[in-house]
């Protein structure tokens, strides 16, 4: 066990200095390049560059729903992990019963996952 130490707010001053230096460097660097760099605006330069083809259409076109599906599934299965934290903390007290219960929980979760795989939700090109 490490000895307990009470931190006071003044102990965090180095962190504040560090973060202000980082932020300050980034901001000054970006401002300087913006101010110092030469600007020659011609029509050709302002056009979107798409492999030599002239840009057409709107950039805000809807994207494939597959991205959405995978993102949503990630959110769903990602969040279940939080139930493992309290279980891990009390792992010794809960003993073998807690382990079996967590196995059942994971099994139920996995049955949903297997369903998704069998339903071909992760197949990119159908």
């Amino acid at each position, binding site marked *: 066990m490490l000895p307990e130490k009470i931190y006071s707010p003044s102990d965090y001053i180095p962190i504040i200095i560090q973060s202000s230096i980082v932020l300050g460097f980034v901001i000054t660097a970006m401002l300087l390049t913006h101010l110092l760099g030469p600007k020659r605006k011609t029509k050709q330069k302002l056009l979107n560059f798409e492999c030599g083809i002239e840009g057409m259409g709107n950039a805000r076109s809807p994207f494939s729903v597959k991205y959405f599906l995978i993102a949503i599934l990630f959110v769903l299965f990602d969040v279940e992990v939080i139930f493992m934290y309290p279980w891990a903390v009390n792992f010794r007290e809960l003993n073998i019963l807690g382990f079996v219960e967590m196995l059942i929980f994971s099994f*139920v979760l996995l*049955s949903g996952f297997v*369903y998704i795989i*069998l*339903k071909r939700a992760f197949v990119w090109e159908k």
Partner: protein
Amino acid sequence: MLTLITIAATGIIILYTTFFKSRKLLVPIAITGALTALAFNISDWNTNQLLFNNMMKIDNYSVAFNSVMILSLILILLLSHQYFKGVDKNVSEIYSLLFFSFTGACLLTSFNNFTMLFIGIETMSIPLYVLAGSKKFSIRSNEASFKYFIMGSFATAIFLLGVALVYGVTGSFNMSEVSEYISATAKISSLMKLGILFIVISIGFKIAAAPFHFWAPDVYEGSPTLVTTYMATVVKVAGIAALLRLLTGCFIGAAAEWQHILEAFIILSFVIGNFGAIQQQSVKRMLAYSSISHTGFMLLAIIAINQFSASSLLYYSLSYSLATIAAFAVLILVKNYKNSDASYESFNGLAKHNPFLAFVMLTAMLSMTGIPITAGFFAKYYVFLASVKSGYSWLVICAIIAALVGVAYYFRIIINMYYKESNSEKIIKDNYFVISLIIATAITLAVGILPQFIIGLI
């Protein structure tokens, strides 16, 4: 506990039948699961169990309400075979969502802890948001689903705020500990009152009690009719059962606080439910409004909060569920046959060529009105008796007026069926459908003639 496990496991099994292309097996598997759950449920009778570190309490109250809900579920499953005939994609998912939602409904009758109440409400609601929108390409279904989702989540958030306040005051989620705290303190703090108010209001949202009913007619109309049947029966019964359990088991010491809220709920439900129902031209919407009015009657049993509350509520739930399922079942057939928006006119002359359907509808409507020899009469009678015993005679008078107004719209269907002419033909229905209708009507009549079987149970 086995009831819950069976229901949830059946849901998962049905989920996987989608890969075996076995449409014919779906309904049998689902009904087998539900019947097994019913058997396990009844075997819990008279065994008071506290499960999962006092998180759940299985007693006769929960067993009785679970049985009513499983009966409704079985009847709905029997109807589903014909209903989903035209649908060829993702049918097993609909069944499994029904079962997952039902898991939550079972939790709601047997919780002993706010955590379980919360999980029950959410497990019940979230699959329903999907089910309400299960007609993917119908804009009306989308709209119903979205409205239900927003209102449901809103209610959830309010519920959680209430639970947080109660937890902050009492320091516990356990029902008996909260109850002890309330009876031990002389003056209930304002945070606690606010917490109780929020919790009761949010459950009022879920059971569509006026003035928190505004989502109900739209959602009931837009959802697929079978899902509407489920929402109007199982979900409402589960919500009401949870409310009574919560108020008796937890907030009974603060009865003076929530009885005023319930008074407002009841009066507004009668007024809005009845006057809304009279104005409707669509039968589906009429049934939605009438279910709001029925919520008022059920809350009448809760506000009485005496030894008759539970049994009269059980009886009312049973009669209401059976009548609603029968009415919606006939509506499904008529709507499919006429391919219409299910106006009153589509019921014209039903008795001539489909005497069986007309009789089922007649019993359902009489039961909803509360005419003797159907279950509805004694349901209303016992609810009135319970609230008169607690000194709510003025509410009972309002309720009787409300029941009389109900005659106007229920009898309109009966008159259309029996006294109006139309060139209708025989409507084809499959065996499952007939079985479901026969069971619903038979129990409605049997329970109406011999009410003491149900009323003496709890």
